[in-house]
Each structure stands twice: as C-alpha cells, then as structure tokens.
C-alpha cells in the first residue's frame, strides 16, 4: 500500500505539481488579510449561523476557506488522473499482478492523493499565518490555527470521491463529473438544516424525496460547523469522514474487481 503511495507521491516531482503549489501559495498570500468568513456573509443566512455560533471562539478564516477550495481543486485535478493513467498505460496490470491486493492499491492511491491535498492546504495555511504575522506583527492564537486545520477532514471523503469517480471514467471525465457531483452535494447540503427550520409537515413528500437524494452526496457543510474543539462533534465529524471515505473506496474497489482492463488500454 505504501509503495503505491510512494509511487503516487513521486509524481509530485512533476512540474504540474510545483506550478499548482506556486499558484496556491501566491493565492494564499493575496487572500491572507480577509476577514473571518462569518463577517463576509449576511448574518441572517443559515450558513453564517452554522459557521459562527460562538461555540469555539475561533472563527473560520475566509482565506483558509478559499485555500481549502483551491487545494481541493488542484488536488482533485492531480488525483483524478492517477488511476485512469495507470489503466491506459497498463501499469495497473503490472502492479496488480504482483502480490498487491486491489484494496491495497486503492488505499495507496487514496493516501497519495490525500497527502497531495493536505500538503497544498497546509502550505497555504503556513503562508496565511506568516503573512498575517509579517503584516500585523501578531501571531494568530493557537486555537484559531487549529480550527483552520479541521477542514483537512473534508479531504478524506473528497479524495475518496475523486478516486471512486476516476475508477469509472477517464481523467478528464473524472474531473468534470467530480465538479458536478460537488456542485450537487453543496446544493443539497443545506436541505436537512432548512427542512428542520420549516414548520412541521410543510416540506411533506418533497422533504422526504429530497432526503433520499441528499444521502447520495457527502455533506460538506458539516466541515464548516462551529463547535467546541475535541468535543463530541469533533469525534462524530471524524467518524463521518472516515465512514464516508470507506464507502467511496469500497465502491471503487468493487469497480476494480469487475473491470476489464484490456478494453481501456492504450497499447
């Protein structure tokens, strides 16, 4: 599994990764002075209240939020091509003919992509914190820095999702489908919260039908929740992320088990 991860990480030496890293770090410096995200939103909106409930006393920084999206985008862009590239170059046949199980191969790829995403995000966060220190002469409180790191949890299902989609499609299609899947998941993320706020019975069958669709997508809004650090919500968020990732990876492994590799080969 780790050998596969290392193989994926070796691709980080490619110029594409350094270009993305450079862009991400420049972006991080540009957006480092933005106000916390709750101050950018309409205080009456549901999202603003979910993000800022004065539970942790540490706001989510807009710059961290932007860098999370950019890191996910770049990480997804690099990760989506991993498995399709192996399949089209027939490398997957060599790898799986060794005593490497499909699940180990999948976990290796997943871990590799997770490291890429996390390193892009962590690098951006370091730039944000340093830029703040240089510009204001103050260091952010430790709890606030830790709070920004919570969003790393969101990379767990995100990477699983990209890996799963890339098992079914080519690299370009994987990126496009992932984008649409993410858009839909964000669109349905507020559904349960909004339905809970409506008077009883108003949502009716529309609410029930919406819930069925809602369960087909990960809810990324949970990662922006304001909660006490290392409490029950933290623990549940971890479980949610891990179980969701397992589900995505299981679908991906199922796909690899039933796939005819010769049909997708370029050779």
């Amino acid at each position: 599994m780790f050998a596969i991860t290392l193989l994926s990480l070796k691709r980080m030496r490619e110029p594409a990764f350094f270009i993305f890293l450079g862009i991400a770090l420049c972006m991080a410096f540009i957006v480092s002075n933005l106000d916390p995200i709750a101050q950018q939103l309409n205080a009456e909106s549901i999202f603003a209240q979910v993000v800022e409930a004065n539970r942790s006393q540490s706001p989510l920084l807009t710059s961290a939020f932007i860098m999370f999206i950019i890191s996910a985008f770049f990480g997804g862009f690099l990760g989506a091509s991993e498995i399709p590239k192996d399949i089209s170059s027939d490398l997957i046949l060599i790898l799986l003919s060794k005593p490497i199980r499909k699940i180990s191969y999948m976990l290796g790829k997943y871990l590799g992509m997770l490291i890429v995403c996390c390193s892009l995000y962590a690098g951006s966060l370091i730039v944000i914190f340093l830029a703040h220190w240089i510009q204001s002469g103050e260091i952010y409180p430790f709890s606030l820095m830790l709070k920004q790191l919570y969003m790393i949890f969101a990379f767990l299902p995100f990477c699983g999702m990209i890996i799963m989609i890339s098992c079914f499609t080519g690299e370009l299609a994987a990126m496009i489908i992932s984008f649409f899947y993410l858009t839909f998941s964000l669109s349905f993320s507020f559904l349960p919260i909004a339905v809970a706020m409506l008077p009883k019975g108003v949502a009716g069958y529309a609410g029930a039908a919406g819930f069925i669709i809602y369960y087909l997508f990960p809810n990324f809004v949970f990662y922006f929740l304001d909660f006490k650090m290392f409490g029950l919500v933290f623990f549940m968020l971890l479980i949610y992320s891990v179980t969701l990732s397992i589900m995505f990876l299981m679908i991906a492994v199922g796909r690899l088990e039933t796939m005819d590799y010769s049909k997708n080969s370029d050779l």
Partner: protein
Amino acid sequence: MNKKTGLMILMILPVFLLYFISEAFLRCAAVANINPDKVKLDNILNDLPESVRDIVTYRIMHTDMTNDLAAAQTEEEKLYAMAVLGEYTRDPEEKERIFSALRENYAANPIAAPAFVYYFLNEKSKKQLSAAEFHRYLSKFPQLEQFTIWALALNKFRTLKKPEREQLAFMMPLLKLKPEYRDYSLLYTEMVRLASKLREIETANQADAKIDESRFHPSIAEILMEREMEMMKKNSAGNKKGK
C-alpha cells in the same frame, strides 16, 4: 455465500450504521447552531435546492391561503379567499370544487371571475363555457370591472394557444362598446394588431377609431384612486365627528 462476500457484508453494516449515526448527530449539531428567531423564511427557502424550494413554497402558500379561507368572516372575505386559493391550487379536484362553488354561488360578483375564466374554453370540464356564454357573463358587469375579466379571458386564449382568428372573433363585441376608460385602448390596440395580421381592414379601422375614443377618458387606476380618497375623507370626517 463465500467467505469474501460474508466479510464484505460484515464490514459494510457497521460502516453504514456509523455513517448514519454520525450524519444524524452532525445534522442536529448544525441545526442547534441556528437561532430560529434570526432566520427568516425567505432565507430558509433560498437555501433549499430549486426543485424542493418550489414544492415547499407552494405548500406554505397553500397552507396560508387555506388558513385565510378558514379565518374569513365576511362573505366578501370568503369569496376573495376562495378565488385566490382556486387560482393558486395545483390540485385539479380542489380547483374544480372551488371554482364550481364560486360559479354557482357568486356569479354576480366580479371577484368570482377567475372561476368563469377557468371554465371558459376548458375542454376537460363538463361545465365548459363557450365564447357566447362568456360574453353574456361579461355583460352583467359595468365597464370598470369588465376590463380585468376581458384581460383574463384574453390571457387564457394565449395560454391555450388558440388561433388568432378565434381570439379576434371573441373580441368583436368590444367594437359595439362605448369605452368609458382609457385602459380599453390596450384591448383595441390588440384588436388592431390581430385584424391587421389577418387582413381584416374594416375591423382594424373600427378598432383604431375606438383607441382614439378611449384615450379621452380617465384610467381605471385614477377612478379607483379617487374613490379611495373619497372613502378616506369620509372616514376621517366620521372620526372627527366621533371625537
């Protein structure tokens, strides 16, 4: 069932269980963060996916209208609430029930006009109204009220995508009318457009003359405003006397 499948099921079940528990917990945590007094209904609706938002908005509006109908005290209020609900509802049975009641019980009141417009040219209904029957219904009202009903009926023609010749034929009684309000010029302009398109020059000329005729009269909005001002004056005079 082989060992591998059994193992997979054994793994899937706790994963699903944990997923649903954690999701439900996080959902509750998200809802707990929200102060219901701070959130407006519009904000909640804006956060719903469009397909769900439409259904939920409909249900909220429908419930409000049903409550208004139940709370109506005067006959006028009840009639108005029925007309609004009848027009808004998407349930064909409810629509039929409300409009049928309006048609039977309030034929003389212009507020019930949406019911007559509903039955006008409605081929699905046994109680369908023909153009001649609709003209007879229209003639019951003074021109002030007639204008809105004409507009509703013409809108129905467009909704049903009826031929323009049929629409022009329906508008012909307007030529016999002596317009009392400026607003009628809109109807005559439409007649001119249709008649010109259908090469009915005589009709187009007649309608054109009516446009000039109607332009010398006040608009319906002006008349209604005047009436309202008079009512307010009367009311304020009554209040002063009372004091």
